[in-house]
């Protein structure tokens, strides 16, 4: 059976991403994971299939944090494999992929076809992840989406965040706010801190340029620049980079469906 349409679903900890693929075009959509991610994912898929049942999609690959909880997927694959493949599709030049998601950060070395050669992932703690940034944004009274657009004044006062631990870093941020340090300077320090953490982690796989920056935090341009600085490598991204996981999953689904 040759599939007509396949789907890739990336059930992340904060957002669910969906890619429909028919061998030619990709259609991406997303929604928040919310409290009931399985229902959210089903709803997202149903909407994308214009009200038809998930059975319309011939093959569905699920990936991400919540991949094992999705009842309607044909196959589950890890976000590491899918992100690499999706990043390879979006940014074919990439030799390394850095994905910063809600709960974890990973660095992946990939070959020309987007196949994983080596990878590292952060451990239990939230340092260097989207969660870290979100807690800090809250402490500053900002939305996480706005943080990347706020630029520090290069001549203004600078500060540092010394702690990698989310709880301690939050206290540091609150302390800085109370001392009257400008918000822009605190945000710059947070970006430096995350970029440092991720660059140190990525060193274990000996990253090669160019580095594709994907995942929920990839649209944060200030962080992208800091990453490039700390890695000493060029870091590229695209507006679609948040869909790297679901795109990779859809590409694997297409391949698998072709073999049915």
């Amino acid at each position: 059976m040759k599939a007509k349409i396949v789907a890739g679903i990336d059930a992340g900890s904060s957002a669910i991403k969906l890619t429909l693929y028919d061998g030619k075009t990709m259609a991406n959509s997303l929604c928040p994971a919310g409290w009931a991610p399985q229902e959210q994912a089903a709803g997202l898929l149903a909407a994308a299939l214009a009200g038809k049942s998930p059975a319309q999609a011939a093959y569905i690959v699920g990936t991400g944090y919540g991949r094992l909880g999705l009842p309607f997927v044909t196959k589950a694959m890890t976000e590491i494999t899918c992100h690499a493949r999706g990043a390879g599709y979006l940014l074919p030049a990439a030799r390394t992929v850095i994905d910063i998601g809600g709960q974890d950060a990973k660095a992946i070395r990939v070959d020309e076809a987007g196949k994983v050669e080596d990878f590292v992932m952060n451990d239990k703690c939230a340092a260097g992840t989207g969660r870290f940034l979100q807690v800090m944004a809250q402490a500053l009274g900002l939305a996480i989406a706005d943080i990347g657009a706020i630029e520090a004044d290069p001549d203004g006062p600078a500060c540092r965040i010394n702690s990698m631990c989310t709880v301690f870093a939050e206290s540091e941020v609150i302390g800085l706010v109370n001392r009257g340090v400008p918000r822009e300077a605190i945000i710059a320090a947070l970006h430096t801190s995350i970029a440092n953490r991720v660059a140190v982690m990525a060193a274990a796989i000996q990253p090669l340029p160019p580095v594709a920056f994907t995942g929920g935090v990839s649209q944060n341009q200030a962080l992208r620049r800091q990453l490039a600085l700390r890695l000493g490598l060029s870091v590229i991204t695209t507006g679609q980079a948040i869909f790297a996981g679901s795109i990779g999953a859809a590409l694997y689904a297409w391949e698998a469906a072709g073999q049915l």
Partner: protein
Amino acid sequence: MADAFTMLKDIKAAGKKVVGFYCVYAPQELVLAAGALGFSLCATKEEGIPDGEKSLPRNFCPLIKSSYGLAVTDKCPYFLYADLIIGETTCDGKKKMFELMKGFKAVHVMKMPQSYLADSDKAYWLHEVQVLKELLEAELDTQITDEKLQAAIQVLNEERRLMQQLAGYLKNDPVPMTGQDFLKLLWGRNFVTDRAAFAEQIKAVISDIEESVANGEAARPQGAKRILVTGVPTGVGADKVIKIIEDCGAAVVYIENCSGMKQYVTLVDETKPPLTAIAEKYLAIPCSCMSPNPTRMEQLDQLVGEYRVDGVVDITWQGCHTYNVESRVVKEFLKQNGNTPFLQIETDYSQGDVEQITTRVQAFLEMMG
């Protein structure tokens, strides 16, 4: 079988002495030749950790915290009934733990050289073994003669040969036994009171396996990815990573850790003077506490070929500096020698990171295609 507390109590009542040790560097032939029962006390259970943390830093290796916790609370029957504990200065954590342990137990600490390469290291270690022999004789009120040593060497060499033979069946594809079952056998060996009966048990397992191989029975499907596990002691209770690997569909075809095969790969040379031969065999153990540690790399290289390994998983405990650092060395070595895929899993005895590790292991298997 009666529970371990009762069993040991009875054994002690019958006049038998009990010696506990924490590491495969402890020369077990000496204990056997002294007519005592030897048990490995290396704890690989989460139980014990909260009690261990009352005296030891929280960011210590879980093996040390668990071992100490079980010892200090009398929860480990083998520790409780031991007349003597043999410790070794293999890592700073254990070294300092033994210092605390001396406050409530008879502990003798063997001082390890830092390397197994130089003749001076070998001479020094021989002296340490000699000291232990004299101490055992005095403490257990016995004579350890060369004849007794030779007999003990033969018993333990035979056990090593059987273990090697058993491991050899995992060279098959499909494998006739899971890595988890293999680990249980290896682990069980630490708590044996009758070595001859144990040897018979292993022979029975071997004949069972031969039968399953002949019947074409498989513990894992043919073509399952073949994983070699190496790193820190990973016994029953701390076998989470081995379980995850097999739950993900791969086959663990070799457990190189000292809780696994590390202690069985070399025999004691039966042609040499016993004490010298014993010292030689034990010092040749390629533990990461040795600096440098080339033998571990050589052995891994050989095993990857012999067992047709698709990937190596290095388990390291949080807080174990030597294994954590050496993980980089192993990764680089494997890359340059055949480019064998490599994954380090740094963890502890808790279950909190099972999902994370599962993702990593799955991605590792997907990476091998």
